[in-house]
């Protein structure tokens, strides 16, 4: 089994590379989630986003989440990469790729990873508008 791969990067995320990283001859399905920065947000036009992370803790938590998913759904491969710094509209801020023998497991595991990441991993998003900015709030 290929190891779990997690990372936090400052440049563009290459989805094709992540998809290749989880490929496995025994896998019949790969589920991928790509989170992209969007506009508008709550009615306001967003110019770009800035992400920051508590990097060592975020990496630890991403590893725990990915390992949990891998054992719970018997995944063949798991890859989760989050981008930080400035991210333009339409670009990927996060990519999750998982492969499994059957597609149900791949879909469920992919969903679990992104849902848990969004709730638990110490990464923060700031939306920058033409005037001012906002931290995604409670």
């Amino acid at each position, binding site marked *: 089994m290929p190891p779990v791969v997690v990372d936090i990067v400052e440049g563009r995320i290459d989805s094709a590379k992540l998809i290749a990283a989880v490929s496995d001859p025994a896998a019949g399905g790969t589920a991928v989630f790509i989170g992209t920065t969007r506009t508008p947000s709550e009615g306001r036009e967003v110019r770009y986003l800035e992400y920051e992370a508590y990097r060592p803790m975020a990496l*630890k938590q991403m590893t725990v989440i990915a390992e949990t998913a891998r054992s719970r759904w018997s995944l063949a491969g798991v890859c989760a990469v989050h981008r930080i710094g400035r991210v333009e509209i339409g670009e990927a801020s996060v990519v999750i790729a998982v492969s499994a023998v059957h597609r149900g497991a791949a879909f469920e595991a992919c969903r679990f990873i992104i849902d848990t990441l969004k709730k638990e991993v110490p990464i923060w998003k700031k939306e920058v508008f033409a005037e001012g900015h906002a931290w995604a709030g409670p």
Partner: protein
Amino acid sequence: MNAIRVRVFGKVREIVGAETVDLPAGPAETTATVLDALIGRYPPLEPWRQYLRVALNQEYVPMERRVSPGDEVAVIPPVSGG
């Protein structure tokens, strides 16, 4: 007297104006006393109190957890990655 260095992020970092804050450490500090001291020094954090979590050594911990010298302390506002 030791100091406790608190890492802050996101909205809290912005209010504090720095990535870390050194707080004087008493003999029986807990996550709750550290949070109280941080908010005492930066009152605009008060409305955020109910939303803040504390991590010790890169793990979320409950309030009232004892903080020992050398622990890595971080105040975590609501996360919004993804």
